[in-house]
Each structure stands twice: as structure tokens, then as C-alpha cells.
């Protein structure tokens, strides 16, 4: 699997990571190398195999626990906002989104 520069740009856009044009070549090589390597999975016969999503299914073979749909925490805006890079009142602040 070899990725073209346009695909690397598209992945970076989807991942919301800015990639300079100067870094594009190296990323293209590295990502293509990793993807080629993982393509060895194509030789495994997976016909009729149910996909396994989680460790809990694997280790415990049990359904995930359910809980009551009730409020158990909250009312702590100062703690919630304590690490915000910018805030206005009890809100996170971001650059203007709508003109």
C-alpha cells in the first residue's frame, strides 16, 4: 500500500493535525511502510469469523454492566473549567465560529 501525497493531506485534515508540505514526504514514506506491513493480515482466512471488539468480551465473555440513567455527579463548574486555556464565565471560549 503506497499512499499518494493527496491521501496523506486528506488523512491529516481528517485527524485535525496540520502537516507542513516539507513534512509530507517523510510522513508518506512512514505511513506507507506501516500500511504495507499490516497488509500481511490479508493472508489470514477470516471467513465466518465474528469480529472481536473488546478485551472485556475476550477475557470475561460477559455482557457489559448496565446502570441507572441518573445524575451522579456535577455542579462543579470551577473544577471542570480549571484547565481551560480560555473561558468566559462558566463557558469554554473559542475563536468566533459564525460570522
Amino acid at each position: 500500500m503506497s499512499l499518494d501525497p493527496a491521501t496523506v493531506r486528506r488523512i491529516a485534515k481528517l485527524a485535525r493535525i496540520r502537516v507542513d508540505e516539507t513534512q509530507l514526504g517523510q510522513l508518506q514514506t512512514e505511513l506507507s511502510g506501516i500500511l504495507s506491513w499490516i497488509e500481511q493480515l490479508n493472508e489470514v482466512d477470516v471467513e465466518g469469523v465474528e469480529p472481536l471488539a473488546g478485551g472485556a468480551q475476550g477475557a470475561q465473555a460477559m455482557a457489559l454492566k448496565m446502570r441507572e440513567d441518573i445524575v451522579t455527579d456535577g455542579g462543579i463548574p470551577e473544577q471542570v473549567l480549571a484547565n481551560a486555556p480560555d473561558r468566559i464565565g462558566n463557558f469554554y471560549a473559542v475563536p468566533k465560529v459564525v460570522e
Partner: protein
Amino acid sequence: MFSELTLVAARDGLRRKQFSARELTGAFLGAIEALNPRLNAFITVTPELALEHAAAADAALARGEQGNLTGIPLAIKDLFCTAGVRTTAGSRILEHFVPPYESTVSANLLRDGAVFLGKANLDEFAMGSSNMTSAFGAVTNPWTRQGDNAPLVPGGSSGGSAAAVAARLALGATATDTGGSIRQPASFCGIAGMKPTYGRCSRWGIVAFASSLDQAGPVARTVEDCAILLTSMAGHDPKDSTSADRPVPDFAAACRRGVKGLRIGVPREYRSEGMPPEIEALWQQGLGWLREQGAEIVDVSLPHTKYGLATYYIVAPAEASSNLARYDGVRFTSREDGADLTELYEKTRAAGFGAEVKRRIMIGTYVLSAGYYDAYYLRAQKVRALILKDFTDVFRGVDALVTPTAPSAAFAQGERMDDPIKMYLNDVFTVPANMSGIPGLSVPAGLDAQGLPLGLQVLGRPFDEETVFAVGAALERAAGFAALPSMRAEV
């Protein structure tokens, strides 16, 4: 001398009033001050907090209250959120993050009286096998090759935890294991490290990497020390729906069970080509030790072993790309300004994440993207099911498996950095346990020709950590591993 104590011996000394928790903690803080500038095992040291914890422990001991860990100084991997203490995950993007809450595992340790010395260095977001990806600098392995002072890696991602314990800067440490991040550094640093069954410890408050694989566990000098730490760390937590609602056994008691009558499997697929002969020899020696103690050794097959790593490098980046979406420059990270919100996200994440983290997020984004999901992610989930089935089949006939922990001893800082896949190959023997959720323990078992430690790995049935500890302790007794790293505290 405090540096010579195991966790068990320190606990006995505290209970017998041979020394106080404050004396013990002071000695370890002094050791950190002396050696951390060279090892960089801690990102943050919290001496005031440690002495507060120690004073509380002394008061409890004076009242006759003996918790499982009262007065025991520990290092906490900087992936566990600690209330009021900066938690970086080894990333620039969380450089100033101070959690307002305590992770369940670290809260359990505090409940049982532990003393926290500080936050241990790690690969950024636990993504790495060398601790070279930390934004806060590499960790130096306290071991060096005979006649060669080249700084070696401690392994990763829990490199700071393992180096701190090996250099006697802490009696034990928390760690996490997504693909080998407890066991491989334990092997590289000549200590014991236990990844319990997925669900044994709550993941709540641990910075998430790959949620279906991440599991917390201890590293310590001995197998029994790990067992004691895990007894405190484990347990059901309603805040993590994947944490197991089952009783926590007395893991330390299991260390004394012995292996008489146990059937130990040797997976033939782990005998990889190019394995150093001394690792192969140590493996055979370990099996011989178990046979001498009454175990039966059985050849077994795990046919999908060779696909474990490739499966891992789809599943783990996919989950990471989703988990790390939260670092957006809005809620709890540093921020790079942008003209609009998208530019803010893109610039914040470009500046805040290191190269390996970006690679993994992008691989994960790609394998989950429209048109590629079935070919990569869904196929990997099916191979994952086959890897689990291999183990399920084998554990019908054997009680545990014994393998090498890693395909090499510790390597030099800067080695294997030119090609990401070379670094990934470190985890070939450890990844299958994460894919299947089973417990795995690394035990220091011998030295290579250059005087570096090598570990053997014990794998067991889901939620049968007791047998894993029994086999690990038997290996430990027979190995009598007494070698010491060249850099270590003497306080």
C-alpha cells in the same frame, strides 16, 4: 539500608517500628534527588505531598492501623490522573494539565496507605517501547553493558516506572500495558511487572490510549511485591463499565503455592528465527526449573501468533485516533491560536503531539475512514478473535504458558529509531496477551553475555492471576536473580 529493602521487607520494618514512614520516605526522596538528574525517571517529584502521606502513615501505624501499603513509597506513572498534581501523559499537549480528580487505581493505593513520591516518565501517551518519545526527555536505564557506558533505554512505555524501581528510587510503581508496556520495561530493567487480566483494574482516570487493550498493573523488585500492589490496585469500579465485578483474591498467598502438578505450555510459534541464543537458552533453563519443581512441560501451538503485531497496529491506532480527539485546545490542553476553530485544532495538535503520536493518530484515522474500515479495522477485529481462540483452545490443556518477555535485552538510546516498524517488533511476545485480555507477568531470570537482564514471561487464563503469580514466583526462586544495576541508590 533502605535501598536493599523489598516492599515486603519495608512493610515488616514499618510494622515492627524499626523505622518510620517519614524516615523511609525521606531516604527515597534523597535517592531521587541524587539520581533523577541522570535517570530522568520522574517528570514531577512531589516531596511535600510524599512527606504528608508519610506523616499520615506514621499516625496510622501508631494507632495500630496497618493497611496493605501503609507507609510504602511508590512512583505513579504520569498517565494516572492525580488530584492537584500535574499529569502530562509524557506529552507537550498536557504540559500544564492538573486533574481535579484522582484515578481509581491511585485512589485505591492511597486508601491502603501508600506514599506517592511523584509522577514517572513514560513514552508520550504510552506509545512506545523505549521511552524515547516522551516530551520530557528520554529515561536512562540504570543498567549498562559491561565495559561500555553507552546509555541504554529502559524499555517502554512504563520506562520511568521500571527505571525508578530498578535504581531503588521507589519500592514499586504503577504502570500500564497496552501492548507490553509493563512487561517489556520490567524485562529491560531486571524487575518484575504484572499486566493483569483486562478488567481487573479500573481504567477510570487513566489517560486513555487504546481502551480495549489498556490495563493497569504494578512493577516492583519481586513477584510477591507485585502481588501485594495488585491486591490494592484491583477491584470493581462502577465508573468503568469494563471493570470486572469479581472478588480480588489474595495474590501474595498465590506466590507460595508452588507448581507441582501444573501443566506449563511452551508455544512453538514463539521460537522465532533470529532469537538470540542466550534468550533461547534462558527459556529452556526456565522450563527446566519448573520441571524440577514438579511441573509438566507441554509443547503447544498458537497458530496466529505471527499476526499479533499487525493486528495490534490497526486496533491500537484506531482506538487512539478516537481517544486523542479530545485534545483540541479548548478544554484542558495548551492552545495554539488560529483564525478559526479548525485552524486552532490543527495548529494545537501539530504543536502538542510528537511524531510517533501523530503517526499513530493518522494510521488510526486512515483505517477507520470510509472505504477502508472493512479492509483494515474489521479484518483486524476478526484476526483478533482468532488470536483469542488460540489461547482459549490452549488453556483447555495447560494451566499457564512460559515464553521470553522480549526478543532482546535493553538497546542503546537512539537505536531502532530510523524505522517505526523496527521499534514495534519489541512487542512481538507481549502483544498477544493484550489482544486476548489474558494476564501476563515478566520475571527477571538471568543476564545476557553483556551483563544485561533478561525476563521470562508467564501467561495465564483470564482472571487466573493466581496461577501466573505461582509460576512466576517459582521461576524467581529458582533463578535467584541477585544482579544489581550499575546506577542505583544507596541510602
